[in-house]
């Protein structure tokens, strides 16, 4: 673990016992996060990205789950922390924002009261009036107009975008160093998405707030992320800086994700390309590379699971799980529609 690391995740594994049998939702995820850094975790539904995020603060703990590996926050292990230790980390050191702002607030309490509750959970000496004052400041800081009045609104009186702003305000109430944003823009319409992303980017800049951004939207990633993890069927299939992932993607799954973006700088295609097939069931994973059944470039070696390794001589921080030779990948990408080849990173 490097000295300046804020969060260090090592070989995180999360398994669940379900009616259909045991499944491994997260299978060996590792990454580091420096203070102020934004890491995006990208993947389709069921890729394990949300489970990874929630496991970081113990939200997936249950009698039916098995969690292994290591999550260290400034050196303190969270995986085997007891409930009270974990409670202190939640909200105080790691704030979390969820996908659906419509259902993430309790409908029966006022917005301000729910924010104040987060503060008072960690600072019991805070009076109700102080909590309310602080809630107004926070709502104001995330751009809720007329915060002094709106603080007493119920969640259903806020619009979707305002609710997500209020969620962010609540997650930041105790000034944590790390924000986990689990699909924070997915449930919002496009203009509001852009506002929320701008807000996240501003908070990252002004407060040096490290962020883990969970999303399936590479457009969102391009806006705010420093580094990217691409997940597929519970495993990280590619990991690198934003430029490495966008300009020199190594895994065919990443190509698929990039290829299915609409682009302003290209002619509009007849049909938007898509990755054929559906993600595999976690109860019945193929042997070897999990992407193999959907991959157009499958060959005999793919029945053996490739490790997450640096395969490019000039980019030791760029890791992927694909057996294809880097040179061969370049050729294939050209054929596939010039994914990520122009404008190499400076």
């Amino acid at each position, binding site marked *: 673990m490097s000295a300046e690391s804020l969060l260090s995740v090592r070989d995180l594994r999360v398994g669940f016992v379900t009616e259909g049998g045991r499944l491994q939702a997260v299978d060996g995820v590792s990454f580091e996060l420096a203070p102020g850094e934004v890491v995006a975790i990208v993947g389709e539904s069921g890729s394990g990205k949300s489970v990874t995020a929630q496991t970081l603060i113990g*939200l997936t703990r249950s009698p039916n789950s098995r969690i292994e590996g290591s999550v260290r926050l400034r050196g303190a292990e969270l995986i085997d922390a007891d409930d009270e230790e974990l*409670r202190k980390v*939640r909200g105080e050191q790691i*704030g979390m924002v969820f996908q659906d702002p419509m259902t*993430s607030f*309790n409908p*029966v309490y006022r917005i301000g009261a729910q924010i104040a509750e*987060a503060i008072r959970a960690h600072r019991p000496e805070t009076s109700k009036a102080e909590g309310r004052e602080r809630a107004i400041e926070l709502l104001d800081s995330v751009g809720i107009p007329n915060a002094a009045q709106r603080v007493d609104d*119920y969640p*259903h009186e806020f619009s979707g975008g305002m609710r997500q702003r209020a969620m962010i305000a609540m997650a930041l109430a105790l000034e944590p160093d790390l924000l986990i944003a689990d699909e924070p823009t997915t449930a919002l319409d496009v203009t509001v998405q852009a506002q929320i992303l701008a807000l996240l980017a501003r908070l990252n800049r002004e407060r040096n707030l490290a962020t883990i951004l969970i999303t399936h939207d590479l457009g969102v990633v391009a806006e705010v992320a420093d580094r990217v993890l691409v997940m597929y069927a519970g495993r990280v299939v590619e990991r690198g800086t934003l430029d490495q992932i966008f300009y020199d993607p190594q895994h065919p799954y990443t190509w698929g994700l990039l290829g299915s973006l609409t682009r302003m700088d290209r002619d509009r295609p007849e049909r938007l390309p898509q990755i054929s097939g559906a993600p595999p069931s976690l109860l019945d994973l193929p042997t070897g590379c999990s992407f193999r059944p959907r991959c157009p470039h499958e060959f005999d070696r793919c029945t053996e699971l490739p490790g997450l390794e640096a395969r490019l001589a000039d980019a030791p921080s760029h890791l992927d799980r694909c057996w294809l030779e880097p040179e061969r990948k370049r050729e294939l990408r050209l054929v596939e529609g010039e994914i990520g080849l122009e404008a190499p990173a400076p």
Partner: protein
Amino acid sequence: MGRFVIRRLLGTVLVLFAVSVLTFLIFNVVPNSDPAQRMAGKNATPELIASINEEWGFNDSLPTQYVTMMKKIFTGELISYEGREPVDERIVEGIPATLSLCIGAAVIWMFFGILFGYLSAVKAGGWLDTTLTVVAVAGISMPVFWLAAILLNYLAYKTGIFPSQGYVELTENPLDWAYHLVLPWVTLAILYLGFYSRVLRSTMLDVMNEDYVRTARAKGLSERRVMRKHVMRNSLIPIVTLFGLDFGALLGGAILIEKIFNLNGIGQYAEEALANFDLPPIMAITLYGAFFVVLFNSLVDIAYAYLDPRIRLGESAQ
């Protein structure tokens, strides 16, 4: 709120009208219900029956009879056929016993129903949950007359721990009042307790999966606070609904329990009236009971609006 009250008042009048007409009609079509025949006795002469018919107005058309009876109910002049006593006096006499029975039992079943439901939900799948489930299902399944008989046999007749019957006025002797009501309270409470705890358990398990419960955990609330502030509050609506309906209906008389424990409440009076085909008290008690059902329905809606700010009285609360 004003609109809500007016609408509810209109609704109440309509419901009471419908209930009274139905009760009246049913009485007049069931066989062997001719009141003059019953009042005149077994060996009545036709002349006697004719004079009773004349005196009580049984020769009038049904609508006229109905209107006369309703008038008498609301002016307090109603006289029963059996015993010819003022019905409103008997009802007023019965209110304290019925009210004591219902309130006491409701306190017990709400307290334990909510406690058991809460513990079951929090410890779902554990031994405590399993135990409470067995207790709840047993409570739901036991017929009230059987349970009352068992309790009476073991706790009253055989051991003499509790009195077997009778009601003592609260104002007369509060201790004796409670002492006489323990068995009826427990019997009635067990009947509802199991059901309430099962309903609360399943609602809480649903609510625990809500996103806002995850949010509450993510902001660092203790598990206890998450359960009590966020899960419980949102799980109370079905319980409040059930309570309003059950309690409202019980105020109209708990026939079986009042009869078994001889509490002389409204329920026991109703049983008596039914056994004697005595229409005036049947009508009066039915209306009295229906009034409470309707009243508590409205109270439930007011409670909804308090429990869930998204509900506005007179709009979505139908």
